[in-house]
């Protein structure tokens, strides 16, 4: 029996397959492209409460003494993390524009050296874009020997542009156990150099 295709349509199946496969590959790539796109989108809009990295702009803003914003700090442990981890200052009143330093206390109560990584989240998310950190222990991993304790600094500036209706910001840190991953990637050594704050 003769191949029936030639009678039926002159268009080639090869072209349709090629276009469809291009679509498939493109959409597969798009799925992965969503990961950086999501990060960029969140960084621009601040919608997921993830504060940005080190704030590099010059600190020339005069403190706005007429306005006071309360900043609260929370610290909690991720699953399987045994350290004692708490803010030294639980709540502080700041004027927008002034650099403020607060400390977080961490103690490795276990009997082995561990590496921790703190991940920040700010609430309300609307304030995320106006909370700048010039120095933060969350920029690096924190290695601690067994029984060692440390106070870790955070230096931040609340932007004077912070919307008027926001009077209170809550910054929460979750500390994750990165001992396994740090060993694998060798990041522990890199993190150690920055942990000079005792």
């Amino acid at each position, binding site marked *: *029996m003769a191949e*029936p*295709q030639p*009678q*039926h*349509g002159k*268009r*080639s*199946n090869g072209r*349709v*397959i090629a276009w*469809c*496969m291009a*679509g*498939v*590959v*493109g*959409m*597969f790539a*798009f*799925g*992965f492209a*969503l*990961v950086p796109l*999501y*990060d960029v989108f*969140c960084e621009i*809009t601040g*919608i*997921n*409460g*993830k504060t940005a990295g080190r704030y590099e702009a010059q600190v020339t803003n005069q403190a706005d003494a007429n306005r006071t914003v309360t900043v609260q700090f929370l610290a909690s442990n*991720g*699953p399987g993390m045994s350290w004692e981890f708490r803010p030294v200052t639980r709540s502080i009143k700041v004027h927008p524009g002034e650099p403020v330093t607060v400390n977080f206390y961490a103690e490795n109560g276990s009997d082995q050296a561990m590496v921790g*990584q703190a*991940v920040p989240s700010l609430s309300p*998310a*609307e304030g995320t874009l106006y909370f700048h950190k010039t120095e933060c222990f969350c920029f690096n991993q924190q290695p601690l020997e067994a029984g060692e304790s440390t106070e870790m600094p955070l230096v931040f500036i609340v932007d004077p542009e912070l919307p008027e209706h926001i009077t209170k910001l809550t910054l929460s840190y*979750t500390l*994750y*156990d*990165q001992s396994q*991953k740090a060993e*694998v990637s060798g990041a522990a050594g890199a993190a150690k150099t920055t942990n000079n704050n005792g």
Partner: protein
Amino acid sequence: MSAVADTHSQEHHHGPAKGISRWLLTTNHKDIGSMYLMFSFAMFLLGGSMAMVIRAELFQPGLQIVQPEFFNQMTTMHGLIMVFGAVMPAFVGLANWMLPLMIGAPDMALPRMNNWSFWLLPCAFLILVSTLFMQGGAPNFGWTFYAPLSTTYGPPSTTFFIFAVHIMGVSSIMGAINVIATILNMRAPGMTLMKMPLFVWTWLITAFLLIAVMPVLAGVVTMMLMDINFGTSFFDASGGGDPVLFQHVFWFFGHPEVYIMILPAFGAISHIVAAFSRKPLFGYASMVYAVGAIALLSFVVWAHHMFTVGIPLAGQLFFMYATMLIAVPTGVKVFNWVTTMFRGSLSFEAPMLFAVAFIILFTIGGFSGLMLAIAPADFQYHDTYFVVAHFHYVLVPGAIFGIFASAYFWLPKWTGHMYDETLAKTHFWLSFIGMNLAFFPMHFLGLAGMPRRIPDYALQFADFNMVSSIGAFMFGVSQLLFLFIVVKCVRGGEKAAAKPWDGAEGLEWTVPSPAPYHTFSTPPEVK
């Protein structure tokens, strides 16, 4: 003379091969369509028996039959098997059987790939079902497999689940490419796009949706695979990832996926309603545009599944209004079906019964969907039985009734026999009553605050849950009747004419019943 005719027929009209190799090696669209339909029915019974376990456990408060760990595996596997094993392959089976007959083509455009895309499915589901017997049990994180529940806290079998999803994704994509190539390249001369039957149109659009979103599903499970086994942190907050990202990527696939499961049913119902109203379909062009609009909108509404994760007000408003906008083209379709029936010469054989039930019950499911779309109200409904009621109202009377209606409508064409109308009507009424008994009380349970995916519940939910379980058992058992009806119809019965329904239209009714192994070797002329 007869000897000459015999050799002639053997040379030029070879029928199916004998034995198992007919099914393993076939490239015939009717064989492959039948295999898809049989496979999907087997999966329907398997997923259904898991639903029976769920409903048996929920028959009374307290833990009676299964442990919570196993209960979670049942809800997960029920969802996965029904979505990927029952509904999607059933529509691919209908497409295989009916698309070439409807457009006057001799077969699908890529018959060998067709064979492959079918045989991948049993492999995928063998892997998926085998996880039930693995150490740590089957996936237990819900069919939506949210990270980190599925990555950090998932059972060891999660990797097998991911592999199974990859394989079924490949199968779906190949099926979709085949459908697109068939519809674009194989139509009979004279059949322009706007003369295509609606089932062909809805499947063409469904195939595009599959090509657009199945790779995204493959991508998201690949990310899970890397998070679990290769130390990446796509969804792991401790490594800089974001669990909410998982939900965005998943629902970017997931929302078009629900339309993949319903659009082919829209097409089939359009044929059936017109046939049993003995009128042409009202508003053909608007039906086509409505399906296109629904498909396009399905890409910009995904975050309505995640109102409670904390998306900003502007986002909630956008996704709320975009979701509600889908009610417009869907309403166009419902009104068109109703108008087709209006002043028609109606008769209510089994396909029509299922089709009318489809229209009424799918509309109820659509309305509860609108309630869920209201962002501020969704906080109350989220992850309650109201959601379970909603999506079962669109999937059971939507997708499943659509498949039953199609099966009864085309069974005479497939088998050459009429099915037993009395039994079929019994099947309909048992299914209809059972389905409503099972799922309607879930609305009340959800509004009263019963969360979904739990093996036990507070005492005040006991009565509605018992009613729901009774309905579910009734619905479940009545599907065995369907199996009996189909087997009986295959084995014999009243001979079916080429066009057993006097109001039916379309090329598929111009070939004899049962449809010969090869049809339209020379294309028909469409005017």
